[in-house]
């Protein structure tokens, strides 16, 4: 039972592999994939209350990991549902695409349970390599082949980040003589005064900064977001971020006492991410690129919660990343639906969306206003709690800078809403989302509002989950 979701995922991978051997039509493949996705989500729910240790204590199943597994599976299922047409991927590679998707999710699920350096590395690589292949699987669009460029960039930046991480891990092993996280941290706690310990920790965190797209590991974001197909981007922009935040919380929460000198580094990363992301997003014309830059800024906000070194701060960061994934998925749902043949969506392509599909326009507006942090949506509550937590620890400068960022960010979100609601569709075709997409968008809308209006239950729950790993 403890390993059920991962086993089901492996099984799902096998089934899809078998499907890829024969010649199935796109609809069947899609239905199989969505069915498997639902089964995986069900399995995470079933194994929700499990606890225990597996594989010689390298793999820890606790409430924290199970919550994140459920979230990862849920987000994956949503991506599968609204991206079900896989418009940007050639039909003949659909089964392979789903196979890599499942393998990547498997890596992420293993990652949130890993408490040993080698298994962290292996799971991270499993999740990354699958995505490196998913990016260039996009249909060839003309001669530019920018999906290849995106794939290569993603691979190179990813490998560099992994290199940093491995280097940090080698330091950790060298300093402590163990790869088990609990032992490593316990021994490191006496040697935070040595620069080597701090550098080792920073480098390991760097690997997760890459997944979460925090400065200075963010360079891949805009090109990969633009080059990958809409469905792949929706996946990259949401699911791995959940796992990255889980691992950041797991690692940072173990740092005690003197180790908090890395606080200053984290704070600089957070603030620079916000400014870099928001200022760059101001001038984008491609919606995915814009959301990519906004994602960098939001990652900075998440870090603001983590660097408080408090349980409430971790819980706020968890609440914020869940909210972010929901808001982001709402926006990507619209992008995937509006894009006719899987091409990229420019901001101008959203013109008059309110006439072409009222529900999609509404979803996009709510998603963007929520990302901008306008109440009563989840984005506001998340930001508010993060700022409160950070100010409570006395980080006045960071809080003021973060607040200023909120004001900068509103401009580009608002300009997309403006296009959606205030311009004419001209000759653009109407958008007809499928039934399943409609259901998914209503679900996301409700989640955005409910999480924003009554955050109490969610934050309490996040605190309980975080407490299990302290």
């Amino acid at each position, binding site marked *: 039972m403890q390993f059920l979701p991962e086993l089901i995922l492996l099984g799902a991978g096998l089934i899809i592999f078998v499907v890829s051997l024969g010649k199935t039509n796109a609809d069947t493949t899609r239905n199989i994939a969505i069915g498997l996705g639902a089964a995986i989500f069900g399995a995470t729910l079933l194994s929700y209350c499990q606890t225990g240790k597996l594989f010689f204590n390298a793999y820890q199943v606790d409430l924290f990991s199970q919550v994140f597994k459920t979230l990862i599976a849920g987000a994956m299922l949503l991506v599968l549902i609204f991206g079900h047409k896989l418009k940007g991927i050639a039909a003949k590679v659909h089964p392979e695409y789903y196979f890599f998707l499942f393998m990547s999710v498997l890596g992420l699920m293993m990652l949130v349970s890993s408490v040993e350096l080698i298994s962290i590395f292996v799971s991270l690589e499993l999740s990354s390599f699958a995505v490196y292949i998913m990016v260039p699987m996009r249909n060839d669009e003309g001669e530019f082949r920018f999906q290849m460029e995106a794939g290569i960039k993603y691979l190179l930046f990813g490998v560099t980040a992994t290199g940093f991480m491995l280097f940090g891990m080698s330091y950790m092993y060298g300093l402590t003589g163990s790869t088990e996280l609990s032992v490593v941290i316990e021994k490191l706690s006496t040697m935070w005064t040595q620069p080597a310990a701090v550098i080792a920790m920073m480098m390991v965190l760097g690997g997760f900064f890459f997944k979460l797209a925090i400065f200075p590991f963010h360079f891949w974001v805009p090109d990969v977001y633009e080059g990958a197909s809409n469905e792949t981007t929706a996946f990259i922009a949401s699911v791995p971020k959940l796992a990255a935040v889980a691992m950041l919380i797991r690692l940072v929460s173990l740092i005690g006492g003197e180790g908090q000198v890395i606080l200053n580094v984290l704070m600089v990363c957070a603030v620079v991410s916000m400014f870099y992301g928001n200022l760059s997003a101001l001038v984008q014309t491609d919606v995915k690129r814009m959301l990519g830059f906004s994602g960098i800024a939001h990652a900075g906000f998440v870090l603001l919660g983590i660097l408080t070194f408090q349980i*409430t701060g971790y819980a706020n960061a968890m609440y914020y990343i869940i909210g972010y994934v929901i808001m982001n998925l709402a926006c990507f749902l619209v992008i995937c639906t509006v894009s006719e043949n899987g091409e990229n969506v420019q901001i101008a392509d959203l013109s008059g969306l309110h006439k072409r599909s009222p529900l999609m326009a509404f979803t996009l507006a709510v998603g963007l*206003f929520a990302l901008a942090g*306008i*109440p*009563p949506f989840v984005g*506001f509550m998340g930001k*508010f*709690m993060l*700022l*409160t937590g950070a*100010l*409570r620890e006395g980080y006045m400068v960071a*809080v*003021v800078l973060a*607040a*200023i960022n*909120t*004001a900068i960010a*509103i*401009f580009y979100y*608002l*300009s997309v809403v*403006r296009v959606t*609601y*205030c311009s004419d569709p001209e000759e653009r075709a109407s958008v007809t989302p499928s039934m399943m997409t409609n259901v998914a968008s209503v679900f996301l809308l409700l989640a955005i509002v409910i999480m924003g209006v*009554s*955050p*109490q239950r969610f*934050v*309490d729950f996040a*605190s309980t989950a975080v407490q299990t790993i302290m």
Partner: protein
Amino acid sequence: MDQLISNPAYPHILSILIFLPLAGAFLLLFVRNEYFARYWALGVTCLTATLSIPLLMAFDIGTSKFQFVEQATWIKSLNIQYVVGVDGISILLVLLTTFIMPLCVIASWSYIKTRVQAFMVCLLIMESAMLGVFVALDFVLFYILWEAMLIPMYMLIAIWGGPRKIYASIKFFLYTLAGSVLLLVAIIWLYIHNDYSFFIPDMMWQNYSSTAQILLFLAFFLAFAIKVPMFPFHTWLPAAHVEAPTAGSVILASVLLKMGTYGFLRFAIPITPEATMTLAPYVLWLSIAGIMYGGFTALAQHDMKKLIAYSSVGHMGFVTLGIFVLNTNGVEGAILQMINHGITTGALFLCIGMIYERTHSRELRDATGVGKHMPIYVTFLTFFSLSSFGFPATNSFVGEFLIIAGTFEHSTVLALACIPGAVLAAAYMLRMLQKIIWGGTDNPDQSWITDLNAREIVTLAPLLFFVFWIGLGAQPFIDLIHVSVENLLTNYHGFHSQAVAVTELIIH
């Protein structure tokens, strides 16, 4: 929590007022019938107005405490509560909001032709948020409603506005949001320094350090001065007013602008009294600058809506002047003037909307000489214009008189400086009035124009009634606010005498 009184006869009246329009808006989302949408919005706003009457009847004018209080825990871990209540400072603003909204619906009856349901939904959400802002006693609740108002107002301007609606709506949104982000930081700071409580009455009259007070005051000032809008933060206002549909202009002028001045009274003065003392002279001179600037700019406008918009800058300058002279006459005059401006300027925007519906132009020269063909219309317009520049026997006279009397008490120089503003108001209003009623020899042919219909008369008549009621018998209105104002000022001066005593103690 001894500042609160709940009223057993009306235990949930404020929540009903807040959530009724919201519920109405929610139901309207599922309706596809335009006629039904209009009648439904009218019904909901009228019902809200009717339900707000008991608030006035049962309001105890003998206390400065918050009345009709409702309290419930909302977010426990952050100690955020749902607390609402009214006192003398907010009661008139609540009533102004509930009574102006049905008029906005009627004014949009034939003006809004596209996406009627969505328009009405925005109006109703606006009403909920505005009422909530005036009665919220928890700072987070206040901030959430304050910000939530931006989205429907943005939509009102951006979708149903005039030719430059995109520019105007974005400017409005950015200005207001940029102003209020530091307010959020101030709120969190206050929360941490008040035993982790967002309860507004507990934050008042505390001894924060001088530096903290100055910084808090600046954060408040930026947010509220943009909303008022005070010179030099006013540039969003003419754009937004000119481009908004009639109902949007009315809501902006009558209610939204009052939130800034309400914020000064509710937050800036009680929470940062020391900083208020230090910075009041600057605010007073900014008010004078606003009065003069608004007046001169209004004099030069040929777009009627812009003219009224700039006149708002001037009128609101009087209000901030009254608030920051910090004596009974000044503050009471300021609150009364907030209501008067809501009534008069709202009415003037309605009048201009009516002309616009006929001529499809806001240009003064296209509306010259309509007096001959629209006798009823110009009668209304005349009274509202007279009221706008504070003609005796109209409402603004009482308000401006009190403000100027208060200013004289405070400083003669300041009072003399604001007098030209009152003269300017007469100049630009009479100029507009003269052109609309008589015009010159080159009037365009207006013979096809029709006078007001019954619906339009019904829209304007209640406002005219209030113009004269407040103008001739303002005492009941002043009685409503008197005790709260006295309490505010006693506390304020008490705070300072205490501070002086402490300083003397330290010196000796």
